[in-house]
């Protein structure tokens, strides 16, 4: 019989029978089959997190080796070329392979739980985006490990990146790897956008979204538009290097500055893309430990969006020293100064939340609250370099290195580790150790500031960045030694974090569904959550579904235990974009091998392009095309084609 095209979803309460039925529909097969075919957002989220942390460790080791080389003047642990590859690979790793993917990992894991849904909007695209990220990471590291790592800094300026000056495969690995990674980021961005707008629990209107959703959504809306700029830049670079085109070389009528524009049109919005989701995590988690809702929810949400919009118009502040016309500099300097306003809104909202709340000092709280301090320091040094004359003095010195580490470690690594303390109990069902957590926090915090606070001075004293060594008697020796010691202390702190996670997984205290007594939906389900997340689809009536009893707000209360059953196979609900009114029943795809095959095909294609072995490239493209055809083939189960009568 033909299944009906329209159905009134049955309403019911959570029961054992319901859970058993859903488990059968949603559970991933065990073993290798499940590993390669799973489309469960929780599985994918954890993979993202583990992979990104592995890259953090690799990038960290690279940094430590560099700090050994720079610990004193005239050391020769590394050759200049080795040093070039190390600092470039360190930047590439931290910015592209750690900072963004770690946030994708937390968002992937948490979004459907925060939104009261059963999966992301496009589960197979979600798996694809992870596999391509992994492939791109391996591709880029294959270059580094074979002595062909990037060697021109992470922003890779021409003309040094052109073949004439850089004949090896270094830049080809980097270019093609970045194009591949761009595919992953774009697919992920599309998925986050559609998920945020279409797969929320009924009642979760746009003014009830957790701030983390606002942050990640805003970041990914930007990614969707700006990632093509960097992919194109790297593609054109590869063309210039391998096919004799003239986009960037002056001799053929090209423009070296075109590279810088394309790179930073992407690069600056991207900087916000790797901090806004982390700021969102803090905005959601910090209030839990202050025992009150976030102060100024609407202002924080709007300032998140405002930061991104302004963020599109500040890219030239990376190019103040390139000789652009004064009027242009004035505009971008102004925009870069104005952008501090929405950032300050978030800072004051966090401070007010702590001030007006009753803070419970946990390790997570320490990480989130210290982020505020580090953000202010990094923000103020950014504000300084937004001023053109100051920037002319400071550009390409260690001052800028100090600034960007305050921003990226301060507003990415610190809140991410805080988020790990906060949410790992949800993922594993086990708490992290608070005592070890204190040691972890203070070692990281002191180590970080010991390493990077003096670095502002190093820069002010004129030490240029990206030099493999420096002479005696410049006044830089002690500062550099302190930075090197600090970086090792910071690394020990991070090690304590990983130790804590390992200990927790082995023997952590059981977490229970809501160990922090937190207000949002992810804490309404067991830890770890079942494959289907919610046995019934909840209906949301406020921003704090689990705190409604004590906040004593007017209006209806959320319904968690009772809701739509949606148990005819793998189903969830789609809601309208603004008001989150139920709109349609979504049939969700089964686990599939198409994503991993497509990613493998794409990886082979890129290897073929790198080696200019067109047969290999063609085979890769063929596999990818077949996987895509299989993927897009209209299916009855997904109601993409008419069922036979």
């Amino acid at each position, binding site marked *: 019989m033909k299944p009906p095209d329209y159905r009134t979803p049955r309403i019911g309460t959570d029961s054992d029978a319901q859970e058993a039925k859903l488990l059968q529909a949603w559970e991933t097969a065990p073993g290798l089959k499940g590993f390669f075919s799973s489309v469960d957002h929780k599985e994918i989220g954890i993979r993202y997190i583990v992979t990104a942390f592995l890259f953090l460790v690799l990038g960290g080791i690279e940094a430590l080796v560099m700090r050994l080389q720079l610990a004193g003047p005239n050391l020769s642990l590394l050759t200049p070329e080795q040093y070039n590859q190390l600092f470039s690979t360190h930047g590439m790793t931290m910015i592209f392979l750690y900072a963004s993917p770690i946030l994708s990992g937390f968002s992937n894991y948490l979004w459907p739980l925060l939104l009261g849904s059963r999966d992301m909007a496009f589960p197979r695209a979600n798996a694809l985006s992870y596999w391509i990220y992994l492939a791109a990471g391996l591709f880029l590291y294959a270059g580094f490990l074979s002595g062909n790592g990037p060697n021109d800094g992470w922003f890779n300026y021409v003309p040094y990146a052109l073949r004439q000056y850089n004949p090896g495969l270094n830049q080809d690995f980097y270019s093609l790897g970045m194009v591949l990674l761009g595919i992953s980021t774009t697919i992920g961005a599309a998925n986050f956008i559609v998920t945020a707008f279409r797969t929320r629990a009924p009642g979760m209107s746009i003014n009830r979204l957790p701030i983390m959703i606002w942050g990640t959504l805003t970041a990914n809306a930007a990614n969707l538009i700006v990632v093509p700029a960097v992919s194109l830049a790297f593609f054109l670079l590869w063309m210039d290097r391998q096919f004799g085109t*003239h986009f960037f070389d002056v001799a053929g009528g090209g423009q070296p500055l075109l590279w810088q524009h394309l790179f930073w049109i992407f690069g600056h919005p991207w900087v916000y893309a790797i901090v806004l989701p982390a700021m969102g995590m803090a905005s959601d988690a910090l209030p839990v430990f202050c025992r009150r809702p976030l102060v100024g929810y609407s202002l924080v949400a709007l300032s998140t969006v405002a930061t991104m919009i302004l963020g599109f118009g500040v890219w030239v502040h990376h190019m103040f020293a390139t000789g652009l016309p004064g009027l242009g500099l004035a505009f971008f300097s102004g925009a870069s100064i104005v952008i501090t306003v929405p950032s300050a809104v978030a800072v004051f909202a966090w401070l007010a939340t702590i001030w007006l709340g009753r803070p419970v000092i946990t390790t997570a709280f320490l990480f989130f609250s210290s982020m505020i301090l580090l953000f202010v320091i990094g923000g103020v040094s950014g504000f300084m370099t937004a001023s053109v004359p100051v920037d002319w003095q400071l550009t390409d010195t260690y001052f800028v290195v100090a600034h960007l580490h305050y921003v990226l470690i301060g507003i990415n690594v610190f809140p991410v580790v805080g988020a790990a303390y906060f949410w790992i109990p949800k993922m594993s069902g086990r708490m992290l150790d608070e005592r070890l957590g204190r040691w972890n926090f203070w070692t990281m915090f002191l180590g970080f500031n010991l390493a990077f606070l003096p670095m502002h001075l190093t820069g002010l004293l004129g030490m240029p960045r990206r030099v493999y060594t420096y002479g005696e008697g410049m006044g830089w020796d002690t500062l550099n030694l302190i930075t090197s010691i600090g970086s090792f202390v910071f690394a020990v702190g991070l090690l304590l974090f990983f130790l804590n996670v390992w200990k927790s997984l082995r023997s952590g205290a059981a977490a229970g569904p809501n160990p922090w007594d937190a207000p949002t939906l992810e804490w309404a389900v067991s830890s770890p959550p079942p494959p289907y997340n919610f046995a019934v689809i909840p209906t949301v009536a406020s921003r704090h579904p689990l705190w409604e009893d004590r906040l004593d707000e007017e209006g*209806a209360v959320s319904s968690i235990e009772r809701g739509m059953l949606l148990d005819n196979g793998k189903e969830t609900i789609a809601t309208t974009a603004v008001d989150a009114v139920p709109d349609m029943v979504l049939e969700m795809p089964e686990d599939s091998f198409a994503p991993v095959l497509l990613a493998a095909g794409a990886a082979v294609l890129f290897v073929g392009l790198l080696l200019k072995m067109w047969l290999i490239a063609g085979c890769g493209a063929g596999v990818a095309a077949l996987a895509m055809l299989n993927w897009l083939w209209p299916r009855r189960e997904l109601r993409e084609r008419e069922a036979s009568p």
Partner: protein
Amino acid sequence: MNETALAQPQKLPVGPIGRHGIGYWGVGTLVASEAALFAYLLFSYFYVGAAAQPGWLLEPAPSLKLAVPNTLLLLASSLVAWVGERGILERRRWQALLGFGGATLMGTVFVLVQWFEWKAKTYKLGTSSYASLYFVTTGFHIVHVVVGIVVLAAIFAWTALDYFSPRRRLTVSAGVLYWHFVDIVWLFVFTTYYVTPYLGFGQ
């Protein structure tokens, strides 16, 4: 005690009905990202051209003899694809097949004509920055047309297999949307490379 909010919707569509489905949003995001890609390609042209020396345009008066008819052909193919979509909507399978088949064919002719245009150029990819921009930008577009042709051909085949109905046709609408995008973006490429030289840009 406050009242409990509980969403109890009446009849809801199960899966995508018409173009109403999240897959359509997915293709929408893809189009947005691809549109940005072309914006950056054209930005590169104008950026390099604005600062170039006289003589940078290798074709100060580009020939419109092939380019204009070819542009019209591509635009017409969008219309033909739309007629195919209407065919699905009105359960006229022959019209749908004609529409998708016709659009596939017209797209293929467009690519062939583009190929002749390329062959007829007196300059090559590596001649200058203008040549590189011209070949890479039109090349990017050709690749998108080829992808669109494959999508249309698949939709043609699935229509022949009688997969779709007015209700279950999201794949068709999403594919046709992509084809419209490929055609519209060509107008921007065409204007940039074939029209702006006549308006004085880069002269």
